[in-house]
């Protein structure tokens, strides 16, 4: 037993050290590999500890799962990372629920341990909730189903009832150990599935970063409780690590979006009052995967551009000034948003960056925490396009620098640069931390149209005199900006 505990501590320390190395992009790759090595040791040790040869049926399943995982990991595109992480959250939850169920089935009949029956019920409930919730999240993110948040009649009541009854059953199961497990545990599992389904069904596209982080946390909590149930120290400790990581990210995301976890889970969508749900963000999430819808969005963009003929003349005239503004700027900050990813404009932005730097301009990127569909998503997309991570600045680092910037180019970002967050009171984004793009000398907005973002709050930035709007598909407008530079 002493060996078990020492090894467990070593393995968990290995995981912790791996995460420690992830604190810098220079060492992160080794951190990931240290984690993988620790995992390998943990698996090998488990084979040794069970006294079974590695050459057994278990190995076959391990190889099958490992191969599927590698194929998945190799084939997934970076833009699809949110749904990939969501899917793996779901598998993690399901695996924990299955382990606990198998443990229950192989439990000696007269067992009367409260800890086992309490934790197994809990792990089963959390695991199944994580699974069904994650599958709905995947369907939403992939655009396969439930794209719009769905609020059913009595939605909240069903959700609360499912969770309450499940909790009650766990308690009964624990206090009457082993008597009713066969009747109760399947019901707990079913209620868990139901709760996860109802929890995620009514959540909107732009709230996804919060939900994915939360489900990430749940998958760890399920593993940790399952570890307690089957008395496995490594499982309990490592699960706790994952649970904590998910919680930290959930809190960061909530703060960055100015939402409380409660209001997200309750399905309150900020822009709801104007029943035509602010379409920018939502059209974008729809467009993400299906080219057909993408075209529809582009079409819509063209229409709105055609409609722009009736817009104030100042905006049209301003286009003639754009080359001067761009070419005179020395310090440029680019603010990418999810709209850039939807328009697949990363490479166009990279070319813009190269053209700007060829003119000896200083260029930096301002990355808002919620730019994308999951924490840190935008950084990955820009890194994929070949942009150095040293240029990617987070909110706190970049905000003081807007004062000294000659030009800000906004690509597909709306709410995160809306000064209404600071200026207006009582809007859904009031008090939300934003990128102070308005502080720059000039701002060029390359968004698809002038509609408000997910929050439904009109962007005050668009009205300011030093802001020039350049509506349209970023994959087309950004190259036009790049050309303006090359001309000189």
């Amino acid at each position, binding site marked *: 037993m002493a060996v078990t*505990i020492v090894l467990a*501590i070593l393995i968990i320390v290995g*995981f*912790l050290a791996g995460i420690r190395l*992830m*604190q*810098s*992009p220079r060492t992160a*790759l080794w951190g990931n*590999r240290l*984690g*993988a090595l620790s*995992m390998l040791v943990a*698996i090998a040790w488990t084979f040794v500890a*069970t006294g079974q040869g590695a050459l057994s*049926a*278990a190995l076959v*399943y*391990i190889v099958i*799962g*490992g191969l*599927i*995982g590698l194929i*998945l*990991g*190799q084939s997934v595109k*970076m833009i699809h990372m949110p749904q990939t992480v969501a899917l*793996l959250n779901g*598998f*993690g939850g399901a*695996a924990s629920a*299955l*382990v606990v*169920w*198998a443990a229950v089935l*192989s439990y000696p009949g007269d067992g009367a341990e409260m800890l086992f029956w309490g934790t197994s019920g809990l792990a089963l409930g959390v695991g199944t909730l994580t699974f069904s919730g994650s599958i709905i999240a995947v369907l939403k993110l992939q655009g396969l189903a439930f794209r719009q948040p769905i609020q059913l009649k009595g939605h909240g009541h069903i959700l609360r009832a499912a969770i309450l009854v499940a909790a009650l059953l766990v308690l009964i199961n624990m206090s009457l150990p082993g008597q009713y497990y066969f009747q109760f545990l399947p019901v707990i599992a079913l209620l868990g599935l139901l709760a996860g389904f109802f929890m995620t069904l009514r959540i909107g596209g732009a709230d996804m970063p919060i939900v994915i*982080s939360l489900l*990430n946390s749940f998958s760890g909590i399920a*593993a*940790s409780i399952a570890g307690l149930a*089957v008395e496995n120290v490594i*499982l309990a400790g*490592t699960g*706790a690590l*994952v*649970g*904590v*990581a*998910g919680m930290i990210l959930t809190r960061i995301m909530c703060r960055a979006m100015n939402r409380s976890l409660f209001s997200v889970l309750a399905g309150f969508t900020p822009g709801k009052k104007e029943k035509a749900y602010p379409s920018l963000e939502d059209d974008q999430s729809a467009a993400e995967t299906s080219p057909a819808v993408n075209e529809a969005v582009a079409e819509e963009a063209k229409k709105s551009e055609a409609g722009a003929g009736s817009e104030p003349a100042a905006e049209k005239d301003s286009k003639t000034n754009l080359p001067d503004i761009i070419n005179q700027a020395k*310090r440029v900050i680019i603010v990418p948003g999810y709209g850039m990813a939807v328009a697949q404009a990363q490479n166009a932005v990279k070319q813009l960056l190269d053209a700007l730097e060829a003119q000896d301009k200083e260029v930096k990127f301002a*990355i808002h*925490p919620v730019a994308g569909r999951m*924490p*840190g998503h935008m*950084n*990955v997309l820009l890194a994929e396009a070949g942009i*150095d991570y*040293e240029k990617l600045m*987070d909110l706190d680092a970049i905000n*003081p620098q807007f004062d000294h910037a000659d030009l800000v180019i906004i690509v597909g970002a709306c709410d995160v640069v809306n000064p209404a967050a600071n200026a207006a009171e009582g809007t859904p984004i009031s008090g939300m931390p934003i990128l102070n793009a308005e502080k720059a000398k000039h701002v060029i907005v390359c968004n698809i149209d002038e509609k408000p973002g997910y929050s439904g709050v009109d962007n005050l930035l668009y009205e300011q005199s030093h802001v020039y709007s350049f509506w349209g598909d970023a994959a087309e407008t950004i190259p036009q900006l790049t050309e303006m530079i090359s001309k000189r």
Partner: protein
Amino acid sequence: MILAMLIILIAAALLGYKVISAVPPLLHTPLMSGMNALSGITVIGAIAVFFTAPAGAEGWAAAALILAMINVAGGFWVTERMLRMFKGKAKESEVQEIPWQ
């Protein structure tokens, strides 16, 4: 055993909180996919249960084995792929950037 388990669980959570909080937003996506891989640790529970399970329960444990291994392999590999894309030009010494004045 239970006490030891709880102590290790709480220690892991506290240390994890400290270490994870310091991961920069730049790397939050790889952090999450890495956590997917770690949540595949359930595989060791599945192995143990697989060998003790009676005939009827083996299938459940086998399903858990497969799903958990998808997490382990998929999580680590996709994290590896992502982190390889994070390239910086500057050397360590040059990174200390002078903020714009």
